[in-house]
């Protein structure tokens, strides 16, 4: 009967380990072997250089519309680092850094952006899913994968990514609810890059944070500095470990920023200020990680240059391989069903017949029949 404030036994923690001025919280600093640190840095740099390459290739017409990931590398990479080969990574579309870590090949990713299904076929040996276009829809199958992980009982976990804009979709909320109800071993990552095309985070939801949405679904959340790879790794490791032990889902909101355009078809000058972008450029995750490695003595200027050269060579090779790819124009018929239906066989034959007719067109004499 009495009126009182309810106690909701849920926790939302803020986490930052290495800030953009290089201040490090020693107590929180995760233990990462030097070799891993170098590999993480290389992957982040690779992702950045690949991103720049894609941007230019779009401008040259060698690939289609491209969605850059510049500035958001830490917010996906840290999660890929925290899971093993048997786990699952379910991306949205700005997780290139994580995909590279997991073993996706650059020529494949290029093929995807060049309008080729070959770019969506997952590399052997990893349990990941391809880029997903309908915003937030991946939350549902990511939840299903996690649910399956639980039912299989082998201790696997699933990391699913979504954008800040995506948290407005019903799919996000329904997936969160199921995850809570079935206590799925899922880490739901929100890459809050402050914008959903032209819509700022404040117009997307009246919630103070996105992290707090977990509370409504009955689980805990982190809000982390998503441009701080160390913080992302700390949060990811904890959430993954909890999920593996049967502790259920965690929501992790990564505070980051889309430094580039939404896609190459977008003009951000219409809706945001250059000053805002500049402010966030100072918080870029890449130089932050490099300086940390240099301070730690894990990397020096010469080593940095060597890594860059290595990546550039790999990029050139991947671009070359991508450009050698020849697609089969009848492929669209082959992957609709396990067995091609008679009607599809007829339609494929019709298309082949058309192509032959076109080839021989010049030789044909038109004849008037009616």
């Amino acid at each position: 009967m009495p009126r009182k404030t309810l106690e909701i036994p849920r926790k939302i923690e803020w986490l930052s380990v290495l800030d953009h001025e290089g201040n490090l919280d020693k107590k929180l600093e995760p233990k990462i072997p030097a070799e891993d640190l170098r590999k993480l840095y290389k992957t982040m740099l690779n992702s950045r250089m690949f991103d720049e390459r894609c941007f230019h290739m779009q401008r040259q017409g060698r690939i289609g519309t491209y969605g850059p990931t510049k500035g958001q590398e830490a917010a996906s990479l840290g999660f890929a680092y925290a899971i093993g080969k048997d786990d699952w990574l379910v991306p949205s579309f700005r997780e290139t850094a994580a995909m590279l870590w997991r073993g996706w090949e650059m020529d494949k990713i290029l093929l995807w952006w060049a309008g080729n299904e070959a770019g969506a076929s997952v590399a052997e040996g990893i349990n990941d899913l391809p880029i997903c276009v309908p915003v937030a829809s991946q939350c549902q199958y990511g939840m299903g994968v996690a649910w399956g992980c639980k039912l299989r009982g082998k201790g696997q976990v699933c990391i699913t990514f979504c954008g800040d804009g995506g948290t407005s979709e019903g799919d996000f909320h329904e997936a969160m609810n199921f995850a809570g109800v079935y206590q799925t071993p899922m880490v739901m990552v929100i890459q809050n890059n402050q914008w959903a095309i032209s819509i700022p985070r404040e117009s997307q939801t009246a919630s103070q944070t996105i992290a707090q949405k977990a509370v409504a679904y009955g689980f805990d959340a982190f809000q982390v500095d998503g441009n701080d790879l160390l913080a992302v790794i700390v949060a990811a490791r904890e959430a993954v470990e909890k999920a593996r032990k049967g502790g259920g889902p965690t929501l992790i909101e990564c505070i980051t920023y889309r430094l580039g355009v939404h896609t190459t078809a977008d003009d951000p000058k219409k809706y945001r200020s250059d000053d805002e972008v500049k402010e966030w450029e100072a918080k870029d995750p890449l130089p932050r990680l490099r300086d940390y490695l240099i301070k730690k003595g894990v990397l020096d200027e010469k080593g940095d240059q060597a890594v860059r050269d290595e990546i550039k060579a790999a990029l050139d090779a991947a671009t070359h391989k991508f450009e050698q790819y020849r697609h089969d124009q009848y492929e669209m018929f082959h992957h609709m069903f396990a067995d091609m239906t008679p009607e599809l066989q007829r339609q494929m034959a019709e298309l082949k017949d058309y192509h032959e007719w076109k080839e021989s067109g010049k030789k044909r004499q038109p004849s008037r029949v009616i």
Partner: protein
Amino acid sequence: MPQMTMVQALNLAMKEAMREDPNVMVMGEDVGQDEGVFRVTEGLLDEFGPDRCVDTPLAEAAIVGGAVGLCFMGFKPICEMQFDGFSMQAFHQTEGHVRRFRNRTRGRHTCPMVIRMPYGGGIRAIEHHSEAPEATYAHLAGLKVVLPSGPRNARALLRAAILDPDPVIFLEPKASYRAFREDVPETPETMEIGKAQIARTGKDVTLISYAATLRATLDAAEELEDEHDIDAEVIDVLSVAPLDSETINASIRKTGRAVVVHEAPRHCGVGAEIVARVVEESLLYLEAPIKRVTGFDTIIPFFANEMTYLPDAGRVIKATLETVRF
């Protein structure tokens, strides 16, 4: 008359309607500050303010479902789905409520709203941005489904859709958004929804199409005339629900032959409905089987291969020759 692209013509139709009726409002993702990803809503936020040109959060079901409630409060929402593929995120609202409320409430509560979206392939877009869902919507009784083919009819039909007392799905062929310009009259113009137009008169065969493939069909008609001495009549369907059986049948009774062209998949496509109506009403006038030139019953390929999938003038010509030479 000013020359306009389809984007400009659609924009004009919305501006005119919003100036005339304060209940008309536009809502969708990035329609305000960004003026729409294709700039179809350019200038609307400036002129009409944020209550009438609404940048919504990212949720198609809420845009369409919310619009249903706004209709009950006397508003006339124009909902923009950013792309055809994402209208599916609002499908349960469209199917479950938009099309049903008039019937459910015996006419008491109605949905005089428009759901507009860029439609179809041909712009090298990523997956889910090149869909042709007209048959899906046409199959939902209670919806009108309109597909303009050029700037002038786009403006007149969008105006008609906004004025219509019932919900209209308005599919804008994005490949035609900026492909060409047309004279668009300075004073508002409407066209009756449910009427096809003869886009080219002819006597030997009837080619029936709509949206972006109308252009390929008209190109084919030219070439059939020049190279094969075949005089094709071309019908621009414009509205697939309701469907103008009269114009289609009248033409086929004259020519005795027909080819239907659309980019959506063939199976249960609008072409199937057109053929059925011709068979029902004009079978004895036919001198050859009707051909369908359509997208295949596959998922439209990622864009590297989309032109193989989309009907082109060559496929229309081949099918027409087969029909004529039958």
